């Protein structure tokens, strides 16, 4: 890039200065929860609620972390969580992307009504369908297995179908049409032309499904009974269960455990956010 004039350069400098100022100020606000979790996870129990709050506990109670991992069978719960999360991510992405492709690129009778119906399923509060749905899974003998948590992902999720449809519709179809003329199958076009172009959206879907499943509390609570089957989020909840009279909730240890559960989310997001950059513009621009 060559320096054309001075004023645009100054403008850029001012603008990036403002950007930084905005990022840092707002960023501090958004970092608050994790900062507080970090600080309270290193505090003694009374210090968690001390007034005024001390952001830098002294001494640092690192033993909260060792206690967190000894209190819960972490490897077991971690494995359980992965066994649920991985298939849900893959299945949700593929099924939703297939369905979204159908809605975005084909003309067929009833398409718009069907799409409306798909959206409509999100508009009835789950509280009134929860018991009938539980009864369906109970009839199938799936309670206390991972099936009620995994199998629905095979049929696509309306949220991601809608999201991907919106993205597919904003991608020009020139290259798809060219491939169609060359005799490529629709499935092939979907896989090797459309999905690569929709990379930011695909990354978004993967991140969201990971976070949604990894941190899901209500689904596992409802369908799992055996302690050996528990996920990490259920385990966290065990730590805050208060039994009448004898319950001492160790909030500092709970915060330590919550932070540990949070780490994979952060790592995944950090890796995935790079792909938000590599969309079709990169292909065209580079």
């Amino acid at each position, binding site marked *: 890039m060559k320096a054309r004039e001075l004023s645009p350069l100054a403008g850029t400098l001012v603008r990036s200065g403002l950007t930084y100022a905005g990022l840092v100020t707002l960023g501090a606000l958004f970092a608050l929860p994790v900062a507080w979790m970090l600080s309270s996870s290193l505090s003694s129990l009374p210090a968690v609620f001390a007034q005024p709050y001390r952001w830098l506990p002294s001494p640092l109670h690192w033993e909260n972390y060792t206690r967190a991992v000894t209190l819960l069978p972490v490897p077991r719960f971690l494995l359980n969580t992965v066994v649920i999360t991985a298939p849900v991510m893959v299945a949700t992405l593929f099924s939703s992307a297939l369905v979204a492709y159908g809605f975005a690129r084909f003309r067929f009778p009833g398409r718009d009504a069907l799409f409306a119906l798909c959206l409509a399923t999100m508009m009835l509060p789950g509280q009134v369908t929860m018991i009938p749905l539980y*009864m369906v899974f109970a009839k199938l003998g799936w309670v206390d297995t991972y099936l009620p948590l995994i199998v629905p992902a*095979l049929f696509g999720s309306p949220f991601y179908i809608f999201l991907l449809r919106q993205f597919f519709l904003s991608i020009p179809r020139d290259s798809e049409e060219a491939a169609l003329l060359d005799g490529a199958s629709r499935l092939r076009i979907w896989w090797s032309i459309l999905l690569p172009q929709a990379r930011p959206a695909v990354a978004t879907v993967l991140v969201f499904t990971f976070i949604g499943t990894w941190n899901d509390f209500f689904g596992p609570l409802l369908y799992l009974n055996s302690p050996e089957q528990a996920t990490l989020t259920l385990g966290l909840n065990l730590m805050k269960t208060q039994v009448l009279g004898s319950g001492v909730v160790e909030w500092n240890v709970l915060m330590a455990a919550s932070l540990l559960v949070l780490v994979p989310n952060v790592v995944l997001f950090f890796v995935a956010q790079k792909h938000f950059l590599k969309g079709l513009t990169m292909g065209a621009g580079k």
Partner: protein
Amino acid sequence: MRPLTGILLSLALLLAGCRRSSGPDRTIVYNCAASTADMAALRPAQEQFFARTGIRVKLNPFSGEEKLYAMIAAGQAPDVFYTNSAVRDRLAAEGRLLDLRPWLETDPLWRRLRPEVRAAAASADGGVYSLSNWSQTCGVYYNRALFAAAGIPAPTADWTWADLRAAAKALTKVGGPGGRTERYGIFIPAHFIEALEQMNHAPLEKDALFLTIPPEAREVYAEYLGLIRAGAMPDVRRVQALGMQAAQMLESGRVAMLVEAVPHAGLAETLTIDWAVAPLPRFGGKEPRYFRSASGGLSISAATKNPADARRTLTWLIGEAAPYQPNPVLADVPFVAAWEEKYPRLRGRGFREVWELSERHPGGDPRYFVRFASWAMGPVMSRFQPWLDRLWSGDATLDQVVAAVPGVNAGVRQDLERQLRSQSLRPAWKAALEHELSAAPK
């Protein structure tokens, strides 16, 4: 895509396959709200119980009311589970709970239970649908150092409400910029108002369906508001009455006294200040009636395949099983000593005195509190709580709140009459409700 789906499905089926193995014969599923520590304590006890009786108790620690209802609706109710008083009656009235009474009369456990626990167990139709697995009273936790510094004598067993009010006012410290209150004399969470009403001998009727504010209760409300208006107690809206913040307030020195449950292991374990606990104050010369008992207990599903084993498990859980021991519902257990053993920080802080007083002068349990444990709790509170909110915020006077009670009850009656039309109620319950409705003034 196809092979992938196939792999996923077979993986899922494999997981499902692993789960169906244990024989159904003598397994009792117990829905427990257990913490990790309790689970650890329960495991060896479970094994011993199995060795002795052949009953395999399967713990389901992931419970919640919605989940319990879903399980019952799907015909997969756990055999033994916790219910609170209001829920217990609703489930019993629809025939979902086993009536324990016929069996209890001959079971040794029944005679071991403290009298007020036995009294609390009976439901309005005469049946017994749950047994309390815990019991508590309440007391005034106070900052001993602050009392000493202010030269105020520590509360005694026969201190009165006037003493409490005077101490609260004396310990309140206004200072700082803008006349801000640095320290409040006391905080009483609003759900302890009924316990105070009991101390003031307000007539409280067990399993009542309608809200009443008799003169004795009105006095308590007036005193309660008086503490707020005098600035000696934070506006109840100002302090969200969550368990964890009780410790916070006392610990931080922002309140000098706090009314809370006794025993309260959370407080005992977290407080680092010099604290002690005193019994609730008496109202004038009236004999005390301390709040006693818990708001629920363990029930057995009417659909259990093995009632005998389920009853045996229930007896075991309440009478023997760790981590529920020492259990204050049992009359033959030296509770205070055992509890002080478990939580040594309780020694010398008044816990023993408060507990023994409450055993000597037991008052009612939550089933006397329309607001918290009655069949009509929902219909009452959805109409009455807004009035209380207005009372705290100063938008309504006490007279207006008392005057609103008939209107609240008229709405409650409408709701109850609609419920009576439902065909799902058991005849005994229907008769009991109808009787209550016809006895209550319109």
